[in-house]
């Protein structure tokens, strides 16, 4: 059987923070999530701030070990990878990242060439200028020679993100995590970068883990979507299903919260508003974490926590009132 690229089972990540003098509190950033990312898939993790999606990306990058639960990459446990120097080296080669802010993810004191040489130097891999140039070519920076000696402040935001992508691809990774890859970019550039990512995925045989809050953007690229709310997965399934037939009231609300860029539809169909704000991850409410904002909430939601259940093939939702909601 083919091993999953990423396999996570009941992964938790708690942070301890100081509150006041000698008092400590636990932030339950990720509170028991499970997901399977198959090779070649692009798996999107959607949620608002405080949902734990950024923590998930740190876990997937192996920058932090999970507090509990199992996290495996191609069948190998992250715990074992982190203690074995050789395994960690190989892991760092095969899992790469593109971050949200292209302005702060490139060292301002380095040239584009130095930035792209770095991965090769770190892993002591032979490289030459044609390899660096072809990387730039692949991310659409032509002619590459024109960019090699430039500093970060001498290129545009879109070009910076292209350089970040090129750096992530340099080591021919298997998995690339993209943390809000287009959030900081202008709308005309957003579309281009998105298309570039789609092209590169097939060209380099990549598996994507995309972290984003911009749901519509994912329509063109996502295979699977995991919707997170306050550290929990509340809905998970094939992207098509999630967009066409979301089951969880939060997912439905999230999808409808986006004003369409068209005054006719915008003014005819007023925004449905989900009242309230996401709960604090230090002190999440008992029961279903969404019950404080949910229009369908009943007593059972306030007391018991709903489990993910399969509503369609491979499509899971955690809600007690699925029938009411869908109607």
């Amino acid at each position, binding site marked *: 059987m083919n091993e999953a690229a990423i396999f996570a089972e009941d992964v938790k990540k708690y942070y301890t923070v100081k509150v006041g003098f000698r008092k400590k509190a636990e932030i339950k950033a990720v509170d028991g999530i499970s997901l399977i990312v198959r090779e070649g898939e692009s798996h999107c993790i959607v949620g608002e701030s405080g949902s734990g999606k950024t923590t998930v990306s740190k876990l997937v*990058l192996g*920058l932090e070990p999970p507090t509990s639960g199992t996290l495996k990459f191609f069948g190998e446990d992250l715990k074992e990878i982190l203690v074995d120097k050789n395994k*960690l*080296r190989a892991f*760092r*080669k095969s*899992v*790469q*990242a593109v*971050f*949200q*802010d292209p302005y*702060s*993810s*490139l*060292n*301002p*004191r*380095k040239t584009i060439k130095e930035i792209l040489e*770095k*991965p090769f130097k*770190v*892993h002591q891999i032979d490289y030459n200028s044609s390899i660096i140039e072809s990387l730039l070519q692949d991310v659409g920076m032509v002619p590459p020679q024109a960019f090699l000696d430039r*500093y970060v*402040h001498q290129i545009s935001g879109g070009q910076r993100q292209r350089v*970040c992508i090129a*750096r992530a691809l340099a*080591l021919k990774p298997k998995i690339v995590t993209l943390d809000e890859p287009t959030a900081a970019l202008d709308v005309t550039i957003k579309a281009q970068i998105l298309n570039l990512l789609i092209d590169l995925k097939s060209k380099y045989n990549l598996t994507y883990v995309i972290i984003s809050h911009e749901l519509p953007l994912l329509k063109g690229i996502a295979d699977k979507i995991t919707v997170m709310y306050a550290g929990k997965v509340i809905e998970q399934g094939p992207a098509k299903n999630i967009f066409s037939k979301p089951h969880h009231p939060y997912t439905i609300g999230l999808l409808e919260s986006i004003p369409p860029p068209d005054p006719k539809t915008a003014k005819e169909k007023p925004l449905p508003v989900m009242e309230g704000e996401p709960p604090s991850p230090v002190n999440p409410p008992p029961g279903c974490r969404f019950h404080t904002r949910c229009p369908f909430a009943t007593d059972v939601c306030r007391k018991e926590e709903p489990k993910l259940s399969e509503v369609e093939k491979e499509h899971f939702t955690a809600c007690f009132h699925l029938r009411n909601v869908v109607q």
Partner: protein
Amino acid sequence: MRLKLSNINIKQTLRRSRSLTLSLILLITILFLGTMASFLTDKDPLKTGYSTGLTPPNSDFLMGTDQLGRDVFSWTIYGVRTALFVSVTSTTLTVLTAVLVGLFAGYFGGKPDQLLMRITDFFLSIPRFILIIFAVIIFGPTLLNIILILSIFSWPSIARIVRAEVFTIKEREYIQASRVIGASNIDIMFNEILPNVIPPMLVASALQMSDAILVEAALSFLGLGDPNVPSWGRMLAIARQAIYAGGWWTLLYPALFITISVLAINLLADGLNDILNPKTIR
């Protein structure tokens, strides 16, 4: 580790930053006098009896002599060597220590950082000059001791600056990106973070240099300088008696050199601040 100055247009920079131009002119003059001292005068600065008693400036003694017949001119220009030697060596030591300690403490945080903070708190809570005086009295007033003592008591405040810089830089995404690539901590500290710490450090080092000149002069003035080298501070102490006999030249010239060199270095710090600000580099 390299600092890229290649994309700074020197002509343009000098025209823009008046303080830099002025400071370079002053510094070059002083350096010239100091390095050429043995060609500019044939008199031994420390030797007494060139004249009998206090002599005002004349063609023989450009800056006059003191009450023991020492030549103020050769004392003053040889004094450049003492002042610059003390300030450059002590600053180098100070900054190297400060950068290393600040880098480690800032990058790793936690216990080492706590330790550094307590040490610096200790140093910063006691007046530094008094500590230096005590240390010089205990260990003896040789040039080497003065340099070491100056460095030991100066690094903590600069290390704090480095630490604060490192603290903000290490949170940037490009540091995370290097970690994802698999770069080691040492690699990240020295190749990614350090180049970004250097510009503020250059400014701090320049200020440290002028401070060292002042401290050395003050020690010598108090009679705690190395008696075997000509120091501006010691000439000032001599001037304390000479001034009553009308020997203004013994006070004026060393004081002028102290002021000019400190001013020049502070202007340099100012100018560096201008040109190293990334917003002004295009």
